[in-house]
């Protein structure tokens, strides 16, 4: 398939969609499916089966994520010549009503209450670039993606751009890695491109593990071809012929859809040998993780792909110099790859025009916690935290007040209410002791205890430490035990001193990012909510029996070896 074939395919599909009188788009992403979305889809499909004559004018499409996940299952009704109507919390009964109103044309207002207005700040404050197709196309159909201009960026890059030009386009766009660290993507691409070896690899990191974060999953579930296209462009730019997508084992739907997408793209000649009738070959394989958070760290991830124990190795050498099997490897987050096609299509200048001077483009956040509208949002960089929490998120429910926002998961920190007007970008959040991270954003209200939050994240890091380096393996356990004492009200001032000392030591001496950033939630809550810790500390505490029990209890279960 070459570029004109691609264009024809897209136009034909678009015409077919436009000739359909009514399209019922049902969200088929994990949050909506788990809240009963399957039953709703069954109702629509049942109706379609019973009324064969409707086939020409009605289409039921299972799409990707639409955004406001707490309001699921969501159904979007697209009628030709009319604005879209989105229904929230759709039940099978409601689905019947929706069908009656929009397809049969009956005068029923039963479903009126469940209409989600399209002009609320939740939608209007967002800017969809990576998620542009999400919720509008069927992720399991290649044609749907092509109809939206999909694979055009790859076709253009292959035909009209040299690998150098692709790399410089990415550099000019100012795109920074979306996995959290924010390294300029174009520089990384250039490093791999310049390496002179016979083999190179491209790896997409879809091992998303932060509690409450599901940006990568949604992107892979809702628009898998976009990730594949980004990877193929990267493969062309750096000179790789093999790509891997590392998908977390807990994401079976994402893996299934990606697999299907790869198969379909290969069948059409958009991946595999001689991509789009050019001399460029690019194969993509999926690797499924086995449930280790640390495998999101790039060196551990590569060890896992190679079938080794998922443990990080010290850098340098960086993967761009020596990665998979010792060859230069380009490793980026799936969201980074998702941003590539729009940059190639619209130009670096367009992308650089979004966001702030140092953080360009948009970022997807998974908005969770004590906020009215939880869900998946994509916002331009530099938007204030206040706009995210109060405009898009709709504020804190049940009359409570905002206390803090946790960004970056177990590697990030808590941002208190005083800093609500901080622009959300890589550097501003780092200054506050947090990080942008991969995009988890948990809002906490005044009922939340900060030492509890710190304890929760420390427990997470303790469980997920790989055990290779001493500061992380033992340090997380020691910090967790101190936090356990703090929250139980039996800690002394000395505990607090040791805790702070240990935090700094872990940050500076741990081998990989997991250990280096594990103290961040604790340090940031100490920085902004020290009084909460102080209130729980008791000086001159007698050595009571429960304090003694906690201090001497074994944190480890007995483990039989042999």
């Amino acid at each position, binding site marked *: 398939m070459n570029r004109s074939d691609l264009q024809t395919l897209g136009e034909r599909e678009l015409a077919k969609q436009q000739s359909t009188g009514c399209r019922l788009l049902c969200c088929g992403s994990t949050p909506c499916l788990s809240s009963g979305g399957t039953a709703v889809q069954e109702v629509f499909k049942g109706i379609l089966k019973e009324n064969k004559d409707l086939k020409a004018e009605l289409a039921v499409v299972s799409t990707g994520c639409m955004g406001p996940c707490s309001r699921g299952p969501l159904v979007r009704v697209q009628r030709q010549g009319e604005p879209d109507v989105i229904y929230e919390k759709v039940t099978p009964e409601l689905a019947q009503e929706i069908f009656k109103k929009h397809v049969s044309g009956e005068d029923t207002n039963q479903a009126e209450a469940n209409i989600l207005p399209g002009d609320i700040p939740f939608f209007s404050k967002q800017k969809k670039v990576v998620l542009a197709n999400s919720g509008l196309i069927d992720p399991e159909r290649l044609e749907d993606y092509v109809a939206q201009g999909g694979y055009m960026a790859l076709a253009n890059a292959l035909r009209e751009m040299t690998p150098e030009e692709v790399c410089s386009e990415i550099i000019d766009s100012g795109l920074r890695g979306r996995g959290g660290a924010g390294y300029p993507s174009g520089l990384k691409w250039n490093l791999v491109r310049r390496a002179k070896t016979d083999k190179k690899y491209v790896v997409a990191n879809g091992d998303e593990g932060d509690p409450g974060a599901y940006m990568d999953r949604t992107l892979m579930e809702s628009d898998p071809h976009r990730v594949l296209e980004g990877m193929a462009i990267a493969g062309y730019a750096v000179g790789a012929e093999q790509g891997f997508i590392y998908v977390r084992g807990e994401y079976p739907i994402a893996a299934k859809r990606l697999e299907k997408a790869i198969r379909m793209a290969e069948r059409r000649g958009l991946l595999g040998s001689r991509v789009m009738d050019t001399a460029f070959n690019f194969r993509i394989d999926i690797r499924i993780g086995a449930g*280790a958070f640390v495998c999101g760290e790039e060196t551990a991830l590569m060890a896992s792909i190679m079938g080794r*124990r998922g443990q990080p*190795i*010290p850098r*340098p050498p960086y993967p761009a110099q020596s990665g998979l099997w010792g060859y230069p490897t380009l490793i980026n987050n799936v969201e980074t790859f998702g941003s590539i096609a729009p940059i190639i299509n619209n130009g670096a200048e367009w992308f650089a025009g979004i966001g702030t001077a140092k953080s360009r483009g948009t970022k997807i956040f998974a908005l969770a916690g004590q906020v009215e509208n939880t869900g998946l949002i994509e916002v331009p960089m530099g938007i204030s935290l206040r706009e995210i929490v109060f405009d898009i998120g709709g504020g804190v429910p049940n009359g409570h007040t905002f206390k803090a926002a946790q960004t970056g998961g177990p590697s990030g920190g808590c941002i208190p209410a005083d800093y609500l007007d901080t622009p959300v970008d890589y550097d501003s959040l780092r200054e506050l002791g947090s990080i942008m991270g991969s995009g988890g954003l948990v809002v906490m209200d005044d009922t939340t205890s900060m030492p509890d939050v710190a304890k929760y994240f420390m427990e997470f890091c*303790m*469980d*997920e*430490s*790989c*055990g*290779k*380096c*001493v*500061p*992380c*393996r*033992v*340090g*997380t*356990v*020691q910090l967790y*035990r101190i936090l356990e004492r703090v929250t139980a009200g039996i800690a002394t001032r000395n505990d607090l001193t*040791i805790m702070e*000392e*240990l935090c700094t*030591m872990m940050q*500076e*001496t*741990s*081998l990989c990012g997991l250990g*280096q950033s594990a103290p961040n939630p604790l340090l940031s809550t100490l920085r902004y909510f020290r009084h909460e810790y102080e209130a729980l500390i008791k000086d001159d505490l007698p050595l009571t029996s429960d304090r003694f029990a906690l*201090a*001497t209890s*074994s*944190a*480890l279960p*007995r*483990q*039989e*070896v*042999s």
Partner: protein
Amino acid sequence: MSVVTLTINDELASANSGQSLLEVIREHGIYIPTLCHMDGLSERGGCRMCLVEVQGMRTLQAACVTEVAEGMVVTTHSERLRKYRRMTLELIFAERNHVCAVCVMNGHCELQAVAAIEGMDHVRFDYLHPDLSMDISHPRFGLDHNRCILCTRCVRVCDEVEGAHTKDVMGRGINCRIVNDLNQAWGSSQSCTSCGKCVQVCPTGALFHKGVSVAEMVKRHDFLSWITLGREKNEWNYTGQPPYYATERRKE
């Protein structure tokens, strides 16, 4: 091979490019503690004892896995580094049951020696007292998880030198354990060749010869370089060199 010049502790030093920083530091007679490094094995960078300050680097670097570079400015001992080394040792001692008084390696132990040199005289963290087992199913050797510091020298020597790969690490984080084959009793292992190299490279009393009592287990710390390089050097009889830390005394 080109020669690079670097500064170690305010003194100029020259080295061959490609050498590790640790090698160069030791060549220049500077003591720097290590626990997971062993001459003749691949580097791991996990014990974090050989961390040094390198000017211009954001983080501390483990000397064993850092290559020397032209113009590098390295500090091997500073107040900060000493403090971190002591804290790392404290964490190791708190992790498992390191009771020197009843250990087969008392007096010959690398961990004990390094702790003494670094001046780690007390542990401020909670002793975790894990309830760990011992594996004495092998006819000649024993494995005591209570003394293990997970340096994985045994894993590497078994894989890289003996080629058996009997030993590996199981579990994650604080639950990591050294296992034989797929967590079998050592004595029932089909792959173990009973070569005993793992015992010789172990820095603590975690691996020992059966039949030794407290303080009786002495290991040949340079055993590995003798068997791997002895032929080249025409060293047919094992004479033994004092370990790198033997002459170092605690400095305050």
